[in-house]
Structure formats: structure tokens, C-alpha cells
């Protein structure tokens, strides 16, 4: 239902709100399907961070969608043909929840029956994620790290001095307006951070782990940045430090593998990290989950800060453009604007 509403709505702000609700709904859906770890992640990511990032993006790109010019008949046809074929394909699939399905016959019984002796961690998801399939997870963390670098290279701006005086007065005004929100959230932030750490280190026994903890940790810091402005947040959390943490997390993960490699076993085989294989597994899982948590949290913070930083820079440029036009940088941007104007004029002419 929500998804259909998203198709129909033209206002992008409403679309973003609906995606948040959609994320929360799918999280509860995952709980119903016994996938608590996944639900945890989806609730933090789908309902929290993704909505925020999209909001930050639409403040820069405008919030209404242009009306469609052509009929979507062809698209509908393609979609229905694909959907029909997929539904035809599902007719041979095993029934929902059946125990004999091929999915449950391959490696899953080994994970369920033997992971307690081999890894000694009650949460099977954690033991599969961090031990049996650790190499896979290393790749995923590398992808997240790369995405962080990508956003950094696309959106980061050269550091420059800004006029703080104007900002301060604006900020104070905002703070007076949002007194209740600010105080309530301020008291919440330490608890969110504490909860993130709990999720991080309790992931062996209950639902949780590095991925969820990283996202929750980042959410707390993003909340802080939203309440007190980006400049204050940037002064508290040094950007270079956060970028360093992102890299260190990935390095920590990879170097755990190298240690076991030098001890004469396979890459990321933790049995040799301690005298007792199970203790070694515990240590290995703890270390790489820490690496995952560091990288995920740092990358999320990097992404958010860069989005908002870009936006504030744009706003500043606009304000300066409207007041005075003697700086070379502004001249350039006005040139850009005039070419844009010309372009739109040409477009109009062509339209006529």
C-alpha cells in the first residue's frame, strides 16, 4: 500500500516520509519472519538514516517532481510481463515455511547443529557472519568503505573560513524555538551511544553486531549535528579523525586475517588466536565486529556531514550572490547561472 502511495505522490518530501514508514513496516515484517538481526538493521537504516539522507538531498535538489510528459503504457507493459513471468516461476517454488525446502538442506543444518561446538556463540547469525563467512563480510565492509570514499570525493569541499557571526545569531534563534526538542534529545544522546555499545558487544548472545551498532552510533552523532548545527558538530568530531577511524576499522578486520595467516592457517581462521579454539573464535569475532562497527559508523557520519556541509555551502553562496558581486568565485557562479538561463531560454524556443 505504502509503495503504491509512493508511486502516486509528486511531492518528494512526502515520498521520503513514506519511505521511512515503509522501512519501519518492513522491519516489523522481518520480526514476524524470525529474522531479528535483519529487522534491527532495517529499523535503524530504513526508517532512520536513509530517510535523513534523502531529506538532505532533496533540500538541495528541489522537492517537487515534474509532471510526466508521455504515457507510461510501455513501462506498465514491461513491468507486468516481468511480474507475470516471475509469478509463473514461483509456481515451482517450495511453499512458505516448509521445512523440506532445498534452502534448509545445504549448509544451514551444519550452522545450526555444530556452530555451538565450533564457534561457541549462541547467536548463529553472528557466528556465520563473522566466522564462517568472514571473508564475504570483509568484502562488504570494503564496499561500504569505498562508498564512503566516493561520497567524500563527490561532495567534499575545500575547507575555508566562514563568517560565524551571522550563523551564531541564526543558531540562537533556532535554539530558542526548539527548546523542548533540544533538551529531550540532548538527554537521549548518551543513552543512544550506550545502547550502540551494548549492541556492539552483546551481538554474540543476542541480536546485534557491528553493522547495527555502527548505524545506531552514527545516528546519535547525526542527531547531535542536527540539534547544534554542523559547525559545532564538526568542532566536536574531527573530520580527519573520523576518516581515519573508517580506514582503521577495515584495516583491523583485514589484519586479524593476516595474523591467522602468519600463524599457519587459512585467512580469517580464528582458531589459532588463543590457546583454546573457541576462545580464539570469541576473540576473532569481537575484533572484527569492532572493525565493522568502526567503519560503518564512521562512513555514515562522513556521508551525512558531507551532504549537509554541501548544502550549507550552497546556501552561503546564494546569500553572498544576492548581496555583493566582486569575488571571483561568485563571478564564476553567476557565469554558470547566466549560461543556465541561456540554456533554458533555448529550451523554451525549441519547445515553441
Amino acid at each position: 500500500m505504502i509503495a503504491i502511495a509512493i508511486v502516486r505522490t509528486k511531492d518528494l518530501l512526502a515520498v521520503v516520509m513514506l519511505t521511512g514508514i515503509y522501512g519501519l513496516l518492513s522491519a516489523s515484517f522481518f520480526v514476524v519472519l524470525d529474522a531479528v538481526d535483519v529487522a534491527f538493521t532495517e529499523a535503524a537504516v530504513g526508517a532512520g538514516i536513509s530517510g535523513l539522507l534523502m531529506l538532505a538531498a532533496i533540500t538541495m535538489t528541489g522537492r517537487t517532481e515534474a509532471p510526466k510528459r508521455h504515457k507510461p503504457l510501455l513501462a506498465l507493459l514491461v513491468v507486468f510481463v516481468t511480474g507475470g513471468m516471475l509469478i509463473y516461476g514461483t509456481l515451482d517454488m517450495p511453499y512458505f515455511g516448509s521445512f523440506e525446502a532445498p534452502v534448509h538442506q545445504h549448509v544451514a543444518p551444519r550452522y545450526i547443529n555444530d556452530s555451538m561446538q565450533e564457534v561457541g556463540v549462541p547467536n548463529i547469525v553472528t557466528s556465520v557472519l563473522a566466522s564462517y563467512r568472514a571473508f564475504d563480510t570483509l568484502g562488504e565492509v570494503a564496499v561500504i568503505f569505498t562508498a564512503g570514499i566516493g561520497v567524500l570525493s563527490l561532495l567534499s569541499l575545500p575547507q575555508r573560513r566562514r563568517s560565524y557571526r551571522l550563523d551564531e545569531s541564526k543558531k540562537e534563534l533556532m535554539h530558542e524555538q526548539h527548546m523542548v526538542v533540544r533538551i529531550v534529545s540532548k538527554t537521549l544522546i548518551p543513552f543512544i551511544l550506550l545502547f550502540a555499545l551494548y549492541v556492539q558487544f552483546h551481538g554474540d548472545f543476542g541480536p546485534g553486531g557491528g553493522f547495527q551498532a555502527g548505524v545506531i552510533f552514527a545516528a546519535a552523532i547525526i542527531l547531535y549535528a542536527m540539534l547544534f548545527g554542523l559547525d559545532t558538530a564538526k568542532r566536536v568530531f574531527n573530520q580527519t579523525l573520523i576518516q581515519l577511524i573508517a580506514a582503521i576499522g577495515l584495516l583491523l578486520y583485514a589484519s586479524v586475517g593476516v595474523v591467522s595467516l602468519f600463524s599457519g592457517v587459512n585467512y580469517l581462521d580464528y582458531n589459532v588466536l588463543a590457546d583454546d579454539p573457541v576462545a580464539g573464535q570469541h576473540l576473532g569475532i569481537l575484533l572484527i565486529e569492532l572493525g565493522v562497527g568502526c567503519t560503518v559508523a564512521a562512513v555514515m557520519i562522513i556521508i551525512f556531514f558531507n551532504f549537509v556541509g554541501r548544502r550549507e555551502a550552497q546556501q552561503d553562496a546564494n546569500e553572498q550572490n544576492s548581496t555583493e558581486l566582486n569575488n571571483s568565485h561568485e563571478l564564476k557562479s553567476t557565469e554558470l547561472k547566466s549560461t543556465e538561463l541561456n540554456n533554458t531560454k533555448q529550451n523554451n524556443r525549441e519547445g515553441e
Partner: protein
Amino acid sequence: MVLGLYNYWIVVLLMMIGFYIVIAHGNLIKKLVGLTIFQTSVFIFYISMGNVENGSAPILAEGLSRYSNPLPHVLILTAIVVGIATTALGLALVVRIKESYGSIEEDEIQIQDQLTEDKT
């Protein structure tokens, strides 16, 4: 009973909606939202395959013998976080496109590209 397959049909329906948004809408942010819905349909597909009747969440405890399959959970757990990272990258690209073209509607961008090609 064919009705036992209903979970796949929900997935296909969600996938169709996401796919439709991606190909029929011109707004780039809307396209990304469509991709997210498409992605979620795949997540739900995996998780619903891993579910077992009368099973419990895959955390070992006394007195439980049937657990749902942990493997799809692991795959999807990481896929969600990777998904948000790649979505953020996509949004960053959209922001840059807006800065250089002044628009995020697909057809307007194409017209501008056409114009620059004609000039050169």
C-alpha cells in the same frame, strides 16, 4: 495449495512497483526510491525463504530445536547496510548532477546534453 506461495507474490508485487518507478519516472530521486523498494523486495524474498514453520529466531537456547535458516539473514543483514551506502553514493551523484545541470529530471538533462553536442 497454490496459496502457500503467497509470500513470493508479495515479493513480486513489490518488485513490480519498484521496477515501474525506476523506468516510468523521470525524477532521479524518485528513481532511487524505486530502486530502494526493488531492493527491499529482494530482501523480503530471501528472508521469507529462510523462514521455517514453528521455527524461532536463530539464537541458540535451551528447549528449542527448530530455528529459521540463519544464512539468508546474514546475507541480507550486510546487504541492507551496503544498500544504504550505495544509495548515499547515488544521492551524492544526483546532487552533483543538480549542480551542473540545474535539474534532476531525466528528459531536461537529455535536452541539455543534446544542446552541448550540437554546439561542438
